[in-house]
Protein backbone atom coordinates (compact mmCIF):
# COMPACT_ATOMS: atom_id res chain seq x y z
CA UNK A 1 0.00 0.00 0.00
CA UNK A 2 1.62 3.22 -1.11
CA UNK A 3 1.77 6.31 1.08
CA UNK A 4 -1.02 8.78 0.31
CA UNK A 5 -2.62 11.89 1.70
CA UNK A 6 -4.60 9.88 4.26
CA UNK A 7 -1.44 8.57 5.96
CA UNK A 8 -0.10 12.06 6.51
CA UNK A 9 -3.46 13.35 7.76
CA UNK A 10 -3.84 10.45 10.22
CA UNK A 11 -0.29 11.06 11.48
CA UNK A 12 -1.12 14.73 11.91
CA UNK A 13 -4.36 13.93 13.76
CA UNK A 14 -2.53 11.57 16.13
CA UNK A 15 0.15 14.18 16.86
CA UNK A 16 -2.52 16.83 17.45
CA UNK A 17 -4.44 14.63 19.89
CA UNK A 18 -1.28 13.75 21.83
CA UNK A 19 -0.49 17.45 22.12
CA UNK A 20 -4.06 18.22 23.19
CA UNK A 21 -3.98 15.57 25.92
CA UNK A 22 -0.67 16.92 27.20
CA UNK A 23 -1.83 20.54 27.15
CA UNK A 24 -4.98 19.64 29.09
CA UNK A 25 -3.40 17.44 31.75
CA UNK A 26 0.08 18.74 32.58
CA UNK A 27 0.56 21.11 35.49
CA UNK A 28 3.96 22.47 34.49
CA UNK A 29 3.48 25.60 32.36
CA UNK A 30 6.58 24.94 30.23
CA UNK A 31 5.29 21.48 29.33
CA UNK A 32 1.98 23.06 28.30
CA UNK A 33 3.85 25.39 25.93
CA UNK A 34 5.74 22.40 24.51
CA UNK A 35 2.45 20.58 23.88
CA UNK A 36 1.07 23.64 22.07
CA UNK A 37 4.16 23.51 19.82
CA UNK A 38 3.38 19.84 19.13
CA UNK A 39 -0.17 20.78 18.06
CA UNK A 40 1.10 23.55 15.76
CA UNK A 41 3.53 21.08 14.17
CA UNK A 42 0.65 18.68 13.55
CA UNK A 43 -1.28 21.43 11.79
CA UNK A 44 1.79 22.22 9.68
CA UNK A 45 2.11 18.58 8.61
CA UNK A 46 -1.49 18.51 7.42
CA UNK A 47 -1.17 21.88 5.62
CA UNK A 48 1.92 20.75 3.73
CA UNK A 49 0.37 17.36 2.93
CA UNK A 50 -2.68 19.11 1.46
CA UNK A 51 -0.41 21.47 -0.44
CA UNK A 52 1.63 18.72 -2.04
CA UNK A 53 -1.24 16.31 -2.80
CA UNK A 54 -4.18 18.56 -3.71
CA UNK A 55 -2.58 21.68 -5.28
CA UNK A 56 0.99 20.58 -6.05
CA UNK A 57 1.74 23.52 -8.34
CA UNK A 58 0.33 26.32 -6.15
CA UNK A 59 2.20 25.95 -2.83
CA UNK A 60 -0.56 27.78 -0.92
CA UNK A 61 -0.39 25.34 1.98
CA UNK A 62 3.33 25.89 2.35
CA UNK A 63 2.79 29.65 2.55
CA UNK A 64 0.23 29.06 5.30
CA UNK A 65 2.72 26.80 7.10
CA UNK A 66 5.28 29.63 7.04
CA UNK A 67 2.76 31.95 8.71
CA UNK A 68 1.95 29.27 11.30
CA UNK A 69 5.67 29.11 12.10
CA UNK A 70 5.84 32.91 12.47
CA UNK A 71 2.92 32.85 14.89
CA UNK A 72 4.44 29.89 16.77
CA UNK A 73 7.69 31.79 17.25
CA UNK A 74 5.85 34.86 18.55
CA UNK A 75 3.70 32.67 20.81
CA UNK A 76 6.61 30.81 22.39
CA UNK A 77 8.51 34.06 23.04
CA UNK A 78 5.58 35.77 24.77
CA UNK A 79 4.51 32.54 26.49
CA UNK A 80 7.92 31.93 28.03
CA UNK A 81 8.13 35.59 29.07
CA UNK A 82 4.81 35.21 30.89
CA UNK A 83 6.00 31.95 32.50
CA UNK A 84 9.20 33.65 33.71
CA UNK A 85 7.24 36.61 35.10
CA UNK A 86 4.91 34.21 36.92
CA UNK A 87 7.86 32.27 38.29
CA UNK A 88 9.46 35.48 39.60
CA UNK A 89 6.21 36.37 41.33
CA UNK A 90 5.19 32.97 42.77
CA UNK A 91 8.49 30.98 42.71
CA UNK A 92 6.36 28.28 41.10
CA UNK A 93 4.88 27.52 37.68
CA UNK A 94 2.36 24.89 38.74
CA UNK A 95 -0.85 25.84 36.94
CA UNK A 96 -2.94 24.52 39.87
CA UNK A 97 -1.47 27.16 42.17
CA UNK A 98 -1.79 30.11 39.77
CA UNK A 99 -5.43 31.08 40.23
CA UNK A 100 -5.36 34.88 40.60
CA UNK A 101 -7.98 35.24 37.87
CA UNK A 102 -10.15 32.43 39.22
CA UNK A 103 -13.45 33.59 40.57
Amino acid at each position, binding site marked *: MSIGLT*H*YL*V*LSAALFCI*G*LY*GALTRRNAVIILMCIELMLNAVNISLIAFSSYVVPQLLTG*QVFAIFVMVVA*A*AEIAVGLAIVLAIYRHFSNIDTNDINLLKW
Partner: protein
Amino acid sequence: MGLEITFWIMAVVIIAAALAVILLRNVFHAALALILCFITVAGIYVTLSADFLAVVQILIYVGAISVLIILGIMMTREVQKGSPVNKLRIPAAIVAVVLLGILVYAVTATPWNISSQDPLTPTTMPLATKLFSENGFILPVEIGAVLLLAAILGAIVITRENKK
Protein backbone atom coordinates in the same frame (compact mmCIF):
# COMPACT_ATOMS: atom_id res chain seq x y z
CA MET B 1 9.31 1.65 -1.71
CA GLY B 2 12.04 3.71 -0.07
CA LEU B 3 9.57 6.52 0.57
CA GLU B 4 7.20 4.15 2.36
CA ILE B 5 9.90 2.77 4.66
CA THR B 6 11.09 6.31 5.42
CA PHE B 7 7.55 7.47 6.15
CA TRP B 8 6.77 4.60 8.52
CA ILE B 9 10.05 4.97 10.43
CA MET B 10 9.52 8.70 10.83
CA ALA B 11 5.84 8.31 11.77
CA VAL B 12 6.76 5.85 14.52
CA VAL B 13 9.55 8.12 15.79
CA ILE B 14 7.24 11.18 15.77
CA ILE B 15 4.49 9.44 17.73
CA ALA B 16 6.97 7.90 20.19
CA ALA B 17 8.71 11.24 20.76
CA ALA B 18 5.38 13.04 21.22
CA LEU B 19 4.27 10.40 23.75
CA ALA B 20 7.61 10.84 25.52
CA VAL B 21 6.99 14.60 25.74
CA ILE B 22 3.72 14.10 27.59
CA LEU B 23 4.67 11.02 29.62
CA LEU B 24 8.26 11.59 30.83
CA ARG B 25 8.48 12.82 34.42
CA ASN B 26 11.70 14.78 33.89
CA VAL B 27 10.98 18.11 32.16
CA PHE B 28 14.42 18.30 30.55
CA HIS B 29 14.07 14.82 29.03
CA ALA B 30 10.68 15.87 27.68
CA ALA B 31 12.33 18.88 26.01
CA LEU B 32 14.91 16.59 24.37
CA ALA B 33 12.11 14.33 23.10
CA LEU B 34 10.40 17.44 21.71
CA ILE B 35 13.57 18.32 19.76
CA LEU B 36 13.68 14.78 18.32
CA CYS B 37 10.04 15.22 17.30
CA PHE B 38 10.83 18.53 15.54
CA ILE B 39 13.74 16.99 13.60
CA THR B 40 11.59 14.08 12.45
CA VAL B 41 8.80 16.44 11.38
CA ALA B 42 11.41 18.15 9.17
CA GLY B 43 12.06 14.73 7.65
CA ILE B 44 8.31 14.36 6.98
CA TYR B 45 8.43 17.70 5.13
CA VAL B 46 11.23 16.33 2.95
CA THR B 47 9.10 13.32 1.99
CA LEU B 48 6.36 15.81 1.01
CA SER B 49 8.92 17.60 -1.25
CA ALA B 50 8.78 20.78 0.84
CA ASP B 51 12.54 21.32 0.96
CA PHE B 52 12.53 24.98 2.01
CA LEU B 53 10.11 24.34 4.86
CA ALA B 54 12.23 21.43 6.11
CA VAL B 55 15.23 23.77 6.40
CA VAL B 56 13.06 26.45 8.04
CA GLN B 57 11.73 23.85 10.49
CA ILE B 58 15.29 22.89 11.49
CA LEU B 59 16.35 26.56 11.80
CA ILE B 60 13.35 27.88 13.71
CA TYR B 61 12.13 24.93 15.77
CA VAL B 62 15.33 22.97 16.41
CA GLY B 63 17.57 26.04 16.42
CA ALA B 64 15.55 28.70 18.19
CA ILE B 65 12.38 27.44 19.87
CA SER B 66 14.00 24.43 21.56
CA VAL B 67 16.79 26.66 22.90
CA LEU B 68 14.15 29.04 24.28
CA ILE B 69 12.28 26.14 25.91
CA ILE B 70 15.44 24.74 27.49
CA LEU B 71 16.30 28.25 28.72
CA GLY B 72 12.81 28.49 30.23
CA ILE B 73 13.27 25.13 31.99
CA MET B 74 16.66 26.28 33.29
CA MET B 75 15.28 29.59 34.60
CA THR B 76 12.31 28.00 36.36
CA ARG B 77 14.17 25.09 38.01
CA GLU B 78 11.21 22.75 37.96
CA VAL B 79 13.19 19.72 36.75
CA GLN B 80 13.26 17.97 40.11
CA LYS B 81 9.52 18.31 40.68
CA GLY B 82 8.83 16.72 37.31
CA SER B 83 5.59 17.43 35.49
CA PRO B 84 2.70 16.14 37.59
CA VAL B 85 -0.72 15.66 36.03
CA ASN B 86 -3.83 17.40 37.25
CA LYS B 87 -7.11 15.71 38.08
CA LEU B 88 -8.48 16.12 34.56
CA ARG B 89 -6.52 13.13 33.30
CA ILE B 90 -9.42 10.80 32.47
CA PRO B 91 -11.78 13.42 30.88
CA ALA B 92 -8.84 14.79 28.85
CA ALA B 93 -7.94 11.28 27.66
CA ILE B 94 -11.57 10.68 26.63
CA VAL B 95 -11.68 14.02 24.76
CA ALA B 96 -8.39 13.30 22.97
CA VAL B 97 -9.39 9.76 21.96
CA VAL B 98 -12.84 10.85 20.76
CA LEU B 99 -11.32 13.72 18.76
CA LEU B 100 -8.79 11.33 17.23
CA GLY B 101 -11.58 8.94 16.27
CA ILE B 102 -13.64 11.69 14.67
CA LEU B 103 -10.62 13.06 12.78
CA VAL B 104 -9.55 9.65 11.50
CA TYR B 105 -13.09 8.85 10.43
CA ALA B 106 -13.44 12.19 8.64
CA VAL B 107 -10.08 11.83 6.91
CA THR B 108 -10.69 8.30 5.69
CA ALA B 109 -14.32 8.86 4.68
CA THR B 110 -13.72 12.01 2.62
CA PRO B 111 -12.99 11.53 -1.10
CA TRP B 112 -9.99 13.84 -1.48
CA ASN B 113 -9.32 15.57 -4.79
CA ILE B 114 -5.84 14.15 -5.32
CA SER B 115 -4.06 15.96 -8.13
CA SER B 116 -2.15 13.88 -10.65
CA GLN B 117 0.58 16.47 -11.14
CA ASP B 118 3.99 16.10 -9.52
CA PRO B 119 4.78 18.53 -6.70
CA LEU B 120 6.93 21.55 -7.53
CA THR B 121 10.63 21.18 -6.67
CA PRO B 122 12.71 23.07 -5.62
CA THR B 123 10.22 25.22 -3.78
CA THR B 124 12.38 28.15 -2.66
CA MET B 125 11.93 30.41 -5.69
CA PRO B 126 8.19 29.74 -6.21
CA LEU B 127 7.61 30.37 -2.49
CA ALA B 128 9.46 33.68 -2.66
CA THR B 129 7.48 34.69 -5.74
CA LYS B 130 4.26 33.77 -3.99
CA LEU B 131 5.14 35.59 -0.77
CA PHE B 132 6.55 38.83 -2.17
CA SER B 133 4.85 39.35 -5.53
CA GLU B 134 2.33 42.09 -6.22
CA ASN B 135 -0.80 39.92 -6.03
CA GLY B 136 0.64 37.40 -3.57
CA PHE B 137 0.92 37.38 0.20
CA ILE B 138 2.87 40.60 0.68
CA LEU B 139 0.34 42.14 3.11
CA PRO B 140 0.34 39.09 5.44
CA VAL B 141 4.16 39.16 5.35
CA GLU B 142 4.12 42.77 6.55
CA ILE B 143 1.57 41.93 9.24
CA GLY B 144 3.76 39.01 10.32
CA ALA B 145 6.71 41.38 10.68
CA VAL B 146 4.63 43.70 12.87
CA LEU B 147 3.46 40.70 14.92
CA LEU B 148 7.06 39.57 15.52
CA LEU B 149 8.07 43.09 16.55
CA ALA B 150 5.13 43.29 18.95
CA ALA B 151 6.03 39.85 20.38
CA ILE B 152 9.67 40.88 20.96
CA LEU B 153 8.63 44.13 22.65
CA GLY B 154 6.01 42.31 24.73
CA ALA B 155 8.52 39.67 25.86
CA ILE B 156 11.00 42.38 26.91
CA VAL B 157 8.36 44.38 28.78
CA ILE B 158 6.91 41.33 30.56
CA THR B 159 10.24 39.89 31.73
CA ARG B 160 11.78 43.22 32.79
CA GLU B 161 12.38 43.65 36.52
CA ASN B 162 10.02 46.12 38.15
CA LYS B 163 12.36 48.66 39.72
CA LYS B 164 10.01 50.89 41.68
